[in-house]
């Protein structure tokens, strides 16, 4: 992956709580075998309503989704991250996230950033007033900045390091391969195995 340090974009306000991953991308889109090409599935049901935020011409090109608490709760489908990214969303700001989604997001360079309730409310209000309202998500300084304000955020240090350096997660883990092998030697002998190993 390319190193990722910060993103600046206009806010797409989604004033809803508990947005589940079935809303972000319905399961029928999850039958595909690719990691890209999911933009058509993003919020497929909600997009049928003309007044849904993604249908607002004044907000076309917005890339920072700001949402209510418990965003992307539910299923583990990484397709939710792929769909947001394919639509052009680079960051999601919310008071809280589904744990699995947040992890999936950072693995794909989608900046899922947890901010205090009041800050999210303020950004939603600002975006309601001004469809062109921009914010910057800075992964180096670990802060979100906007006209007249800034807010620090916390992020999993390993995920941050991988993004800043553009490193491959698996390659970094495999660099510790000796540790894994050493651990495997000490595993209890009765633990289950599957497949051909069972007969042996």
């Amino acid at each position: 992956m390319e190193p990722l340090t910060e993103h600046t974009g206009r806010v797409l306000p989604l004033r809803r709580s508990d947005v589940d991953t079935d809303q972000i991308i319905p399961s029928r889109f999850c039958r595909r075998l690719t990691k890209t090409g999911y933009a058509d599935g993003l919020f497929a049901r909600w997009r049928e309503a003309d007044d849904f935020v993604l249908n607002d011409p004044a907000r076309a090109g917005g890339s920072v989704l700001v949402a209510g608490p418990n965003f992307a709760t539910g299923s583990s489908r990484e397709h939710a991250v792929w769909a947001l990214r394919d639509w052009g969303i680079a960051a999601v700001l919310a008071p809280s996230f589904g744990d699995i989604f947040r992890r999936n997001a950072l693995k794909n360079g989608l900046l899922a950033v947890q901010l205090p309730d009041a800050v999210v409310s303020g950004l939603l209000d600002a975006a309601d007033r001004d469809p062109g309202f921009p914010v910057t998500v800075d992964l180096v300084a670990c802060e979100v900045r906007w006209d007249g304000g800034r807010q620090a955020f916390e992020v999993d240090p390993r995920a941050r390091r991988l993004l800043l350096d553009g490193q491959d997660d698996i390659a970094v883990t495999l660099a510790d391969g000796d540790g894994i092998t050493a651990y495997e030697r000490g595993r209890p002998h009765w633990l289950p195995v599957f497949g051909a190993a069972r007969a042996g």
Partner: protein
Amino acid sequence: MSEPRTLFQKIWDSHRVPSGSDGPDLLYIDAHLVHEATSAQAFDGLRLTGRAVRRPDLTLAVEDHNVPTDSLSISDPISVEQVTRLRSNCAEHGIELFRHGDAQQGIVHVVGPELGAIQPGMTVVCGDSHTSTHGAFGALAFGVGTSDVEHVLATQTLSMPRPRTMAVEFTGALPPDVTAKDLMLALLTEIGANGAHGHVLEYRGAAIRGLSMESRMTLCNLSIEAGARAGMVAPDEVTVEYLATRPRRPTGSDWDDALAYWSGLHTDPGATFDRTVTLGVDALSPVVTWGTNPGQAVPLSQAVPDPAQFSDAAEQAAARRALEYMALEPGTRMRDIEVDTVFLGSCTNGRIEDLRAAAAVLRGRKVAPSVRMLVVPGSMQVRADAEREGLHDVFLAAGAEWRLSGCSMCLGMNADRLSGPSRCASTSNRNYEGRQGDTARTHLVSPAVAAATAVAGRLAAPADLS
């Protein structure tokens, strides 16, 4: 003496891989369960980078999400491709696979435990959020996305910060008509659909000790609906008895070694949790959902709530939206809500005990003419067990459909999908908008309530039937 530790801490500590880097812990994974809907891209990733599956012998695959339950041939070409891809990936990497049509096929979270392949103290992951089910065995089990599936395939580990811990203490004795499903819906109502965010839960209390393994699986399964990372129950004689007859349990002296190890897997007296929640269970009664997340639930004896009664503005807005989607008016008695579909199945309530509970209600009764009822066993093994007990005869005589195994109508991905504005009483786990069909409305219920509802044509408990 060492510090007292929680069950979670013991499992976490015993799975930490010594690592040169000073990042978060690297956790070794004992069992990796795989299914067709979240794995293809992970195998592609391995292919692109020329990596192998590190431990095919710790990996088990099942076809469940995207298979039909009325036929052994898949008609939809996209679904055929997804299932075919899982088959070729498993063949290429030497991974054991239970295919649609195999006697051991079923929903991944039903199949693993019934084999006896999920044991106390293990770490278990799967590209599916309801992996939390396996915590019933005193295992640390959680769902992951496809990038993590690839990471586990390649390294058999995951790098993750240590979650916080939360004790859920159930006090008192469970009334006879109250099930694990009701217990969890009551807990979700109490703490909210994100109330356990970032935590690993340990379910504790005498009420838990009295639960079967099937019920403990229902309990842990629904942990994710509270936003928890995982849920677990410490192993005891119920766990050991369940495992003792399973085909993939340890045998001979291995069994004795395993027993000795398992006996230490409990939270030590004096160990502390980051949070504790207590719920009295004496006064509970069957619970059903009225909204579009599993925390929007009330006892069946009550009415659809008025959004104005919720304290915070976000909850009020969510309740209003939910009622609009569900086409329900505040004040409507839950028992007056008519349904046209009843779904008995899923990894939450598709095990033999669930089928028995529903059959006990349906015996000698008929599904209402206005209702279609699907009975989808959680696995082909459950189906065979049920047929041995004659449960299928009860379902068929009542007018329900007796189907093959799969995720079916739980997620509306395969052919079992509602069309139009159907209203369904479902034993599954998610009542999200559009989950069971684009405009389908879902009420989550226990198997006994599902069966009574099928007979009454409206939400009902067994005691309501004459």
